[in-house]
């Protein structure tokens, strides 16, 4: 009895073997890599970054025949990777003076590779319905008038100013204090928390004011309006305790490892020459975030429609 069953099983197996046909593993060979070598590209966790990285990776792979290794990392860890040789490039950097000082000036493991052409803005935003019904809210001088409306379970008897993503520098506590605003900074703690808050605010006409930034894919969906703070002048944010002015505009740039720059290979040339606009990035970000395209496909679509721009990056390479 026992032996029969074993035999049966083996027979079934053999039959399966004989009966099946199909493509064998290794029938088709995969593409070979060119002389570009490996390109270690950090992917920081936001969609705008992903858009930059997707297009760069696509061009590097298709045109320069590099082997692109994408590494999904938070900023801090990515910069650390310059020193350990595991990251070649960060392709959208928001200021980060602390990291610059540490890795570019002190450890000398990283260098800047110029602007991405994208302008970044940080500030306080309100949902569009609010800006429309109370246009004067867009001036900070009128914020105290509306403080009561922004009260929540978290802010006590003051208005709530929702802060969010801890990745970015925030001066909001100092701003509230120094501009004498009757608000309390509540730390949402993540981009997700901010996006949900603004989405609901617009949908249900709720009163929300919070820290946000552009370019960001949500702005394609909801046109948040920026509140005007006292104008930024160079140096007005030098003392973090006494800040009473708006955030500066950020020229988002690319940072590469020293070794990668010194090697001066085709991938580095591409990163160095890469430059586009907020509009370009928003287009690709929209493909990814709203049309739910894979980053590769989104990049392909954009590259095919913008061959001239891509040519400018690779021509010099």
């Amino acid at each position, binding site marked *: *009895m*026992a*032996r029969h*069953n*074993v035999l049966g*099983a*083996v027979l*079934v*197996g*053999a039959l*399966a*073997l004989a009966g*099946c046909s199909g*493509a*064998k*593993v*290794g029938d*088709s060979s995969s593409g070979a890599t060119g002389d570009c070598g490996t390109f270690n590209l950090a992917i920081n*966790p936001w969609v705008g970054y*992903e858009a930059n990285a997707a297009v760069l990776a696509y061009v590097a792979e298709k045109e320069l025949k590099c082997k692109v290794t994408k*590494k*999904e*990392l*938070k900023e*801090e*860890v990515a910069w*650390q990777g310059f*020193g*350990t040789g*595991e*990251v070649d490039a960060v392709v959208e950097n928001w200021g980060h003076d*602390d*990291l610059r000082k*540490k890795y570019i000036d*002190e450890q000398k493991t990283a260098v800047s590779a110029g602007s991405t052409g994208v302008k970044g803005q940080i500030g306080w935003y309100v949902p569009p319905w609010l800006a429309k019904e109370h246009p004067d809210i867009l001036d900070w001088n009128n914020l105290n008038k509306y403080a009561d409306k922004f009260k*929540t*379970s*978290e802010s006590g008897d003051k208005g709530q100013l929702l802060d969010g*993503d*801890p*990745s970015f520098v*925030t*001066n909001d*506590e100092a701003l509230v204090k120094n501009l004498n605003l009757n608000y309390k*900074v*509540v*730390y*949402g*703690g*993540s*981009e*997700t*928390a901010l996006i*949900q*808050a603004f989405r*609901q605010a617009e949908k249900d006409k709720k009163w929300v004011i919070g820290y946000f930034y552009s370019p960001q*894919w949500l702005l394609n969906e909801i046109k948040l309006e920026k509140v005007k703070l006292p104008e930024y002048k160079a140096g007005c944010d030098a003392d973090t305790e006494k800040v009473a002015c708006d955030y500066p505009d950020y020229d988002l740039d690319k940072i590469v490892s020293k070794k990668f720059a010194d090697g001066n290979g085709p991938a580095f040339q591409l990163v160095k020459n890469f430059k586009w606009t907020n509009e370009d990035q928003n287009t690709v970000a929209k493909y990814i*975030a*709203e049309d*739910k395209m894979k980053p590769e496909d989104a990049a392909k679509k954009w590259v095919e429609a913008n061959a001239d721009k891509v040519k400018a990056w690779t021509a010099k390479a």
Partner: protein
Amino acid sequence: MVAVAAPRQLPRKPLILAGIVLAWLVLWLVFRNVGTLPLDASALTPLHRMINELNDAVGASRNSNPLFLYFFNEIRLVIDEFVTFVQALIAQPSFGRPVPVIGWLGVVAIAGFVSLVVAGWRVALLAVAGFVFLGLQGLWQESMDTLSLTLAAVVISLLFGIPLGIWAGLSDRANRVMQPVLDFMQTMPTFVYLAPLTLFFLIGPASATIATLIYAAPPAIRITAHAIRSVPHNTVEASESLGATRKQTLLKVLLPSARKTIVLGVNQTIMAALSMVTIAALIDAPGLGKTVVKALQTLDVGTAFNAGLAIVVLAIVLDRVTTAATERRKLPRWALFGGLGVTGVCVYLSYTYLWAAEFQSDVEIGSSIRQGATAVTEWAQDTLPFITGGFKDFVTFALINPLQALLAESPWFLVALVIVAVSFLIGGVRSAIVSAVCLGLLVATGLWQDSMITLASTLVATIMVMILGIVVGVWMGRSRRADRFIRPILDAGQVMPAFVYLVPFLALFAASRFTAIIAAVVFAAPVAIKIIADGIRAVSPTTVEASTALGSSSWQTIVKVQLPMARGALTLAANQGLIYVLSMVVVGGLVGAGALGYDVVAGFSQGQLYGKGLAAGVAIVVLGVMLDRLTQAAAKRWTN
């Protein structure tokens, strides 16, 4: 014997306790907002700056320090090789092939066969179905990456954990030294050591594996030690009096009798490892975690849920297999060899043919799951906030705010005095000293007020966990059917990555302390419920029958017999509930809890806040140790 526990008379202590609280309230009114030791979100203390500098120095010396060159690098190499090898077998294209060595058919067959051998037919079927389901979700490769990393972390955890556990089980001194270290490993938020880990072990599988095993190894050590310790003394004595050597006693008596419990430790280690999948993805750990993290950048709950569900499926399969493995079983020879044959054939097929190597299915269900989850989330977000918002406001104003006002707005010395006095009442001088030391450390971290805010939320969450634990636990303990139905939901609550349900929670409750509390309850309640259910079931049936025969109603039986007799389980549930709630403090920081959780998150994201984040992590550990020792002391008093 009907063992209805008569409540013991404790006339004085509750009175003193009430007196203390009353005095606190009065003094609070007088001293409100004096000496609360606050610290702004971006402010630092000298200690925080010092840690920053230390961190920078370590980073800068990385390439010249011999400790890095010869120690950490070697560890990294070994672990990297190991993980990469497992990935090459089942997950990643390897050895010059476009696919892994063993394709999906082979993996499914092996999973089925191993389950068959260790856990029997029913579990084997579950394993096969579970693994095929992963493929149908369209997440085969991601799942295998996660499985590889989890297996590697678990194997390494056990390799060190079980011997250490045996040691701690045999030696009191070893146990005393290990306890605080294990506490540290389990309650120190991963965010704190994630970035330094990549400095020591570089970005890649090694760091991800080590991050996972720091969190996953302690249960294996603890439970093994506990298992060795609970072998009855007379069994050991009998063996020794028969002239057995220590080694013989260990191998022939202690380990076999502790086997069942040790397997439970293995089980808990696997669960803990799986709960780390998403966090490890932040340092480029391959697998399902990446899918979740990526989906959440665009708030794509459907995709995140699909991947989260795959983690849950893996967890349930691994849990059922290891749980069933505690019972000895013997397979008929024909089944063993037959199974081996079929598995061999499947592995061969999956090695050779593309259809058996890559999961390509026409009946793909991933997209339906995604759409379903999205639709449910949207419905909930559109219809429920009206009710849930009110509930949030009610709990916040009635419970969280008063408690927080009392803890965080009293002078620090007042709170410290109250806690030390209460500790003395509960556990005598020893407890009072432990609490005093912990409170001193909290002051030293420079984050006293943040700690008190976090403590308030933690207490509220623990109360909710216990209410849920008792209600659902009693129900499950009394009804097998309820148990079978609820248990998978509890498993899901434990391993479903928090961020998947945080997105709808944020819509329902906005960014608030309450949202953080609810997230903690979702994670911590399952443990409490399971412990209480097991405790209720362990009450001897004859006692329950006797009570029913005496004409007690169900309610009376529960309140007068089952709950009092399960009080060991109740205190254990409270203790574990607290610890699990604390391990969610950081997640809470991501959804509006502020305080320590936010400090840790910010420290992970911004270099200049690193020191503060580390200090906040230490504060969480200290809170955990203090509350753990207090509940244990209370438990001892109550159960004796």
